[in-house]
């Protein structure tokens, strides 16, 4: 918690600097002011707090905690883990993001079926706990550098697939991820759109999700964020933890590499 004031100062500075360049005049100033005031107290901390307890609680048919879960830095290591995700895991022979990895841990350690999430509802039941755990885990990488290991062929392949998916246009509105996130300085309504094809934008976007959304008072994981992007693209629904979501995550994380983790973030 020592690093908090620093983090807040950075968030305020970023909130003031970023939109000023994008929107014009008083509107931009007003919005910057608004964001700076919000950065003061992020309700995502309530999820972090709950998640830390859940991480240590015995749960599921096997009555075990998640304390032996290996997020890539060894069993039980949470500090810095999410800054280095997604990564290739030998035991599952898959590239996994935080949430698909947590599903693996819950299944193997606790006996909790992935169906709870794949068929679950956001904010309900086991999914609510997942969101709290995610908040806790990503908070443990706050202020660290985004650092995904791209050396394995599996990660390289996922990156290539993710890039392809990013530009894939389909559906009744002909949208792709790149429609909104492929150029600098664009916005939807008053929302600045990070250019996820470049380092700066990817660091801002990937680096600030998962986040608390003030519009609905919910905490959104990255899977939820991607799910809603596809909803607005008018695509069919991506399956929770599916390869397209992980491939896109690898594409964004690699592009963001070296940027700062600002999670959990706070968004409109």
């Amino acid at each position, binding site marked *: 918690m020592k690093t908090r004031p620093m983090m807040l100062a950075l968030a305020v500075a970023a909130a003031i600097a970023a939109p000023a360049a994008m929107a014009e005049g008083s509107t931009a100033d007003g919005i910057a002011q608004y964001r700076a005031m919000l950065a003061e107290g992020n309700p995502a901390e309530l999820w972090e707090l709950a998640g830390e307890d859940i991480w240590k609680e015995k749960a599921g048919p096997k009555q075990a905690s998640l304390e032996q879960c290996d997020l890539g830095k060894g069993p039980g290591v949470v500090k810095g883990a999410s800054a280095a995700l997604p990564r290739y895991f030998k035991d599952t022979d898959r590239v996994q993001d935080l949430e698909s990895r947590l599903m693996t841990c819950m299944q193997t350690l606790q006996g909790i079926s992935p169906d709870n999430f794949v068929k679950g509802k956001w904010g309900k039941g086991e999914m609510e706990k997942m969101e709290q755990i995610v908040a806790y885990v990503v908070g443990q990488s706050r202020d660290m550098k985004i650092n995904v290991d791209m050396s394995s062929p599996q990660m390289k392949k996922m990156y290539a697939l993710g890039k392809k998916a990013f530009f894939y246009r389909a559906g009744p509105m002909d949208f792709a991820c790149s429609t909104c996130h492929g150029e600098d300085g664009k916005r939807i309504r008053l929302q600045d759109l990070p250019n996820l094809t470049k380092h700066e934008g990817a660091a801002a976007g990937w680096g600030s999700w998962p986040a608390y959304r003030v519009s609905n008072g919910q905490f959104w994981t990255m899977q939820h964020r991607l799910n809603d992007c596809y909803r*607005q693209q008018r695509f*069919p*629904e991506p399956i929770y933890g599916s390869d397209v979501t992980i491939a896109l995550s690898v594409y964004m994380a690699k592009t963001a590499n070296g940027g700062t983790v600002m999670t959990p973030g706070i968004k409109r």
Partner: protein
Amino acid sequence: MNKYLMIAPLALGIHLATAADDMTAEFKQMMDGSFESSGIADKHRLYQLDFQAVCSSDRMPSAERLKAIEAEQMKTIRWPSDGKYTGDWKSGEKIAISGRGLTWSDKADTTNGGGCYNCHQLSHTEISYGTIGPSLLNYGKLRGNSEEMVKYTWGKIWNAKAYSACSNMPRNGDAEILTEAQIKDVMAYLFDPESPVNKP
């Protein structure tokens, strides 16, 4: 008519496949395994139209390719059946503001919006506008209402791909996002001298 390019999963292990083909096959398999139908958003929506596939890369297609698509898309434009191009600007404003419709959380009977404000500045008073598309402030005032300008605008709203093959703008008429009557209202919003688009 637009042709569909199917992305059904391909059989793996074809001997002659190159690395790029492998990648394409793997990509198709990934997409097929990653999405499911949800509400009105059927899984078929993953199938790409030919121009969607051509416009799905970080590199622009060749000039000839773009021209061919534009010519093809131009044929889809349906001009107003009664020869009238404009309706009610007040309804047009509501359509321009609404971004509803066609998502899996919408219903089949949801009245679709045009979502114009998501990407364009239009009126002098609405500050919450996007910048993916150009500003359309003073649209009618600046461009006048010559037949050419009115027809171009109608066509652009109906199917933007007829004018720019890989445009970010949806095909509001061709893809049945908006009805002919709704498009007339949006046209009035752009051209009517009384519309807040043209009145400070």
